[in-house]
C-alpha cells in the first residue's frame, strides 16, 4: 500500500494540486495556437515579415524540410549534441558538486578557478575547442557540456548547504560511510536542485550546441539558422528557432515527468 498526499480533502493552500490530474495540455496548446495566430496577424498588419517571418511561411518551410529529410538530419544532430552535453554535464557535475560541498576547504581553494573558468565566454574559446576536440560531433558536445557543467556544480554545492544538519548528524552518529550518506541523504535531498539544473541546463545545452555549430559545422539547427541568416532568409531562421523551441519544450516535459516519478514523497 502506497500513500500519496493527494486526498479528496485537498487543502486550500494547495489549490493547484487537484488539477495535477487534469492535464494542462489543452490549455497549453490553446495558448500556443493563440500566440501563433497573433504572430500571423501581426506579420500582416504590424511589421514586414522580413523581420519576423510568419507562422504560415514557417509551417510551409518545415513541411518542405521534413519531406526532404533535412529537418530530421538537423534536428537529430543538434539533439545529439545538446543531449549528450547535458547528460555528460550532469554525470560529471553532480559528483563534483557533492565532492566540493563535502570538502569545503578544497572548494574554497578552487572557488576562484572554477568561477573564472565558468566566466569564460565559450565562443571566444572556439579555436581551442577545435584544436582539442576537432570539428566533429565531439566538439559540439563539449561546448554544450562546458556550458551546463557549472550549473550542476554550483547548484549542487548550494543545495548541499541547505540540507538539514540533523539528518547528516544522524548518519554520522550511526557511522554511515561516505557513499551511504551520499546515496541516502545527499542525493535525494538535492533532487530539486538537480532538477532545477536540468531545467536550466536544457536551454544552455541547446545554446551550447548552436554556438558549437556556428563555429564550424555543416549540419544541425544552429548551422541551418546561421546559414539561413547568411541568405537573408528570415523564414529559415525562424523555422530553425521554432524547432529549437520545440526541443526545449519537449525536454521540459520529460523533466517534469521524471520529477513526478522521482519526487513522490512531496
Amino acid at each position, binding site marked *: *500500500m502506497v*500513500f*500519496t498526499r*493527494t*486526498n*479528496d*480533502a485537498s*487543502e*486550500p493552500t494547495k489549490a493547484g494540486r487537484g488539477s495535477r490530474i487534469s492535464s494542462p495540455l489543452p490549455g497549453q496548446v490553446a495558448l500556443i495556437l493563440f500566440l501563433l495566430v497573433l504572430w500571423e496577424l501581426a506579420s500582416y498588419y504590424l511589421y514586414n515579415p522580413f523581420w519576423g517571418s510568419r507562422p504560415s511561411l514557417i509551417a510551409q518551410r518545415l513541411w518542405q524540410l521534413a519531406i526532404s529529410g533535412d529537418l530530421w538530419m538537423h534536428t537529430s544532430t543538434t539533439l545529439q549534441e545538446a543531449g549528450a552535453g547535458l547528460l555528460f554535464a550532469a554525470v560529471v557535475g553532480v559528483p563534483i558538486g557533492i565532492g566540493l560541498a563535502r570538502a569545503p576547504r578544497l572548494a574554497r581553494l578552487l572557488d576562484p578557478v572554477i568561477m573564472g573558468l565558468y566566466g569564460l565566454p565559450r565562443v571566444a574559446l572556439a579555436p581551442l575547442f577545435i584544436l582539442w576536440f576537432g570539428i566533429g560531433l565531439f566538439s559540439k558536445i563539449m561546448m554544450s557540456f562546458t556550458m551546463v557543467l557549472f550549473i550542476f556544480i554550483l547548484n549542487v554545492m548550494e543545495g548541499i548547504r541547505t540540507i538539514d544538519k540533523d539528518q547528516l548528524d544522524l548518519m554520522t552518529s550511526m557511522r554511515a560511510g561516505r557513499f551511504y550518506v551520499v546515496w541516502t541523504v545527499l542525493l535525494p535531498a538535492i533532487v530539486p536542485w538537480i532538477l532545477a539544473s536540468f531545467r536550466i541546463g536544457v536551454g544552455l545545452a541547446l545554446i551550447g550546441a548552436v554556438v558549437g555549430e556556428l563555429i564550424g559545422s555543416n549540419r544541425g539547427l544552429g548551422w541551418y539558422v546561421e546559414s539561413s541568416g547568411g541568405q537573408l532568409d528570415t523564414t529559415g531562421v525562424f523555422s530553425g528557432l521554432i524547432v529549437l523551441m520545440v526541443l526545449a519544450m519537449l525536454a521540459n516535459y520529460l523533466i517534469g515527468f521524471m520529477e513526478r516519478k522521482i519526487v513522490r514523497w512531496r
Partner: protein
Amino acid sequence: MAVMTTEKRAVSAPAKAGSEPAGRVRAELRDLQISFRLPDMSTLDVISGISMTVSEGEFVAVVGPSGSGKSTILRALCGLLKPSGGHVAVDGVPVSSPPPGVGFMFQKDALLPWRTVAGNIRVGAELGGMPAEEHEERIGRLVKLLRLDGFENAWPNQLSGGMRQRVSLGRLLAYQPSLMLMDEPFGALDYQTKIAMGKELLSVWEAERRAIIFVTHDIEEAVALADRVVVFSARPARIVADYKVDLPRPRHMRAMRSDPAFTMLTEAIWADLALPS
C-alpha cells in the same frame, strides 16, 4: 478538597457541554468525516462522524491515541484541510479558509529558522494586528513569561527542543487569538516548565475568556487545565467520552494530584483510552 462532577456521555450523543455555559458557540463540528485517499484508490478513514461544539470561554482538552486524528481535526477547524464530509463552522460561519481570530499552535514548532526568537514571536504580533508600537513591549513580556530571557536574539537552531516549543507558544500568544487551537503545546517541556506555562495560559484564558481546544497526551494535564476533556478512540476516530471537569479554579496541579476526585477522573479517562477500539 475539590468539588467535581464526572459526566460521562454516550459516544453517539452530541456533546452538550458546550451549550451549558450559555456562551456563544465558537467552534462546531457536525458529523465530521475526514479520509485520505490512497493511490490504490482505497481510502484511509481518519475521522468518521465526530460532532462537538466549543463555546465562548471554554477550555476543552482532547486526548486520544497517537495517530487517531487529533491534529487532523484541528487542521480542519482552521481551514487548512477540507473535510470529506460533514460540517465545520467557527462563529457560525462554515470554514473554508482560516477564520479570523483563530490561532493554531502546530505540533511541530514550524519556527522560521531565519528569524531570531524575538523575530519569530513578532510574526504573531504582526499578524495579530497589534499596533506596531506595542510590539517590542509585548515581545519583551512574552520572552520573560516564557523564560527565554537572554535568548531574544538567538537563532532557532541554537535552542533546545523545549525552548523552540516555547517560542512557538509565544508566537501564538502574540497573535492574541480568541479561539486557540493548541496541538500538544507542552509536549517537549519538563514538569516544572509545563506547570508554569499552564498557569500563564490559564491566566490569559481567564482574563479574556478565550476558547481553547487543547490536544495533549498528558491526561493529568488535560484534567488540570480544562473544563472538558474529550476522549478520542483510535482511528477511525470517534468520541469515546466527553467529561466535564468541575474542579474549582485556580487549580494547583501538585495539590490536585492527591485529590481522590482528580485521581478518579484521570483513572476513568485512562480506562476509556485503554479500551480496544
